[in-house]
């Protein structure tokens, strides 16, 4: 998936240390906007949203000593494009012990693009409980929204062309931390 193709150029948007700083900043913003992350649950969207949510929780703990519950929410069964592709394998859904009812849920994903993943996540949330409010944190917002959805916390806005693609690599899933823009020259 992350293999660079020879015929395309690729540009590193965030290096490993940039990425860490961006995660730190989002963690601070969450603390600020949620008055100390009270009643807050972080739910990562598989695959890369899950380690990102865990990192955010770890940073929040490091900054303020607060333990924010972390979980994952797989949205595969709620996708609107299931019939356009071969069957997808499911990711893990693991809600934190206390559940999400009455809590502030922050959805965490790597890239915000069409907004369809987030729509599916909102549908999935609706079936697992009734949060008091839902927010969205993404590492990269690359634009080209197809639905009226915006993020509350954005690591980096990257203006992209439709033919380009944004590749987020994380140590947990890909062995290194990096955000790359590929497919530039066309």
């Amino acid at each position, binding site marked *: 998936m992350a293999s660079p193709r020879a015929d395309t150029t690729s540009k590193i948007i965030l290096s490993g240390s940039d990425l860490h700083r961006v995660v730190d900043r989002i963690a601070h913003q969450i603390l600020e906007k949620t008055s100390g992350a009270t009643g807050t649950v972080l739910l990562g969207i598989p695959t890369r949203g899950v380690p990102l949510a865990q990192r955010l929780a770890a940073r929040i703990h490091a900054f303020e000593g607060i333990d924010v519950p972390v979980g994952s929410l797989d949205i595969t*069964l*709620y996708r609107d494009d299931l*019939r356009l592709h*071969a*069957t*997808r*394998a*499911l990711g893990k859904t693991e809600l934190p012990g206390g559940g999400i009812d009455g809590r502030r849920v922050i959805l965490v994903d790597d890239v915000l693009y069409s907004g369809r993943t987030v729509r599916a996540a909102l549908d999935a949330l609706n*079936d*697992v409980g009734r949060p008091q409010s839902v927010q969205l944190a993404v590492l990269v917002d690359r634009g080209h929204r197809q639905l009226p959805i915006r993020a509350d916390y954005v690591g980096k806005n990257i203006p992209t062309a439709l033919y380009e693609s944004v590749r987020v690599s994380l140590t947990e899933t890909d062995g290194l931390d990096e955000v790359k823009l590929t497919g530039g020259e066309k």
Partner: protein
Amino acid sequence: MIKHLRSAADLDAATATLILDTAGEMAALAGREVKKLPTLRGRTVVNLFYEDSTRTRISFEAAAKRLSADVINFSAKGSSVSKGESLKDTALTLQAMGADAVVIRHSASGAPHRLASWVDGSVINAGDGTHEHPTQALLDAYTMRSRLGRLAGLKVAIVGDVLHSRVARSNVLLLTTLGASVTLVGPPTLIPNDVAAALSPATELTGSASLRGDRLIPGEMAGGFPPPANPAGVEKPTAISPAAIAVSYDLDSVLPDMDVVMMLRVQTERMQDSYFPSAREYSRRYGLDLARMRKLPEHAIVMHPGPMNRGMEIAPEVADSSRSTIVEQVANGVSARMAVLYLLLGGKA
């Protein structure tokens, strides 16, 4: 992904593992308040049941409904079948109604294979004659994996009427694919003479030899029809290594070594001849009672596909013990069938 699930031999180890993993995710749904997913909205699943069934039909119905598919239940009783309609004509009717999947149970071995050549949708075998019952094998494998943590290397005894059991056949195929070893236990009259040959694809489909024209005639499948040279719908033979299957006629000597004991129902409705002298003798030699259960290792589990003949192949105290997974198997059945329906119907057709 495969299109049909006609036989446990349709599944290679990777596909079977994917189904079991998916079933694990589906199982989480049972603990939720809203036990419904929008995944198969607008898809139609037909339950085509030519044989009586409680748990399998209800299980498939629950699975399809939890995935938001529309479910049409068809049972031979009270339908045009009692007016003499053939399986093919029924199939064409379903085709015209736009069924995306047909779940079929039929007394004729090979009926799902024939059906798959007549309809565009996916065909799922919910039990055909004495041939196969692949979703039962999947839910059994899922139950074993969730209780014992693994399948590779497990020692499984399948006890009882192996000869007439589609559950046994599908389990042997699936469990050996997933690396377990199976011991078939029962009276010599209820174990196939040559186990390897009985499981090979040529004899697997003796049923389709008796599909005269397009008319499936139930109840004639047990006869000695020669296997067809190239049975329809079978892509490749499944090699079962004989090393993974053992046969024993003595239950007591097998038990101390087993991780799983699967008791089969004595299928009186499929037995025209007498295969054992009396029910009492069968029960004494091959029934699982408390004394026998104590011979099992500490961790071993007891399974039964249901419906049980309490007191015949399994003692009530055993069926209700903590080692018994019988109720769990029913719950897991819904998850396993949801996984199958999702993987067959969820993607691009």
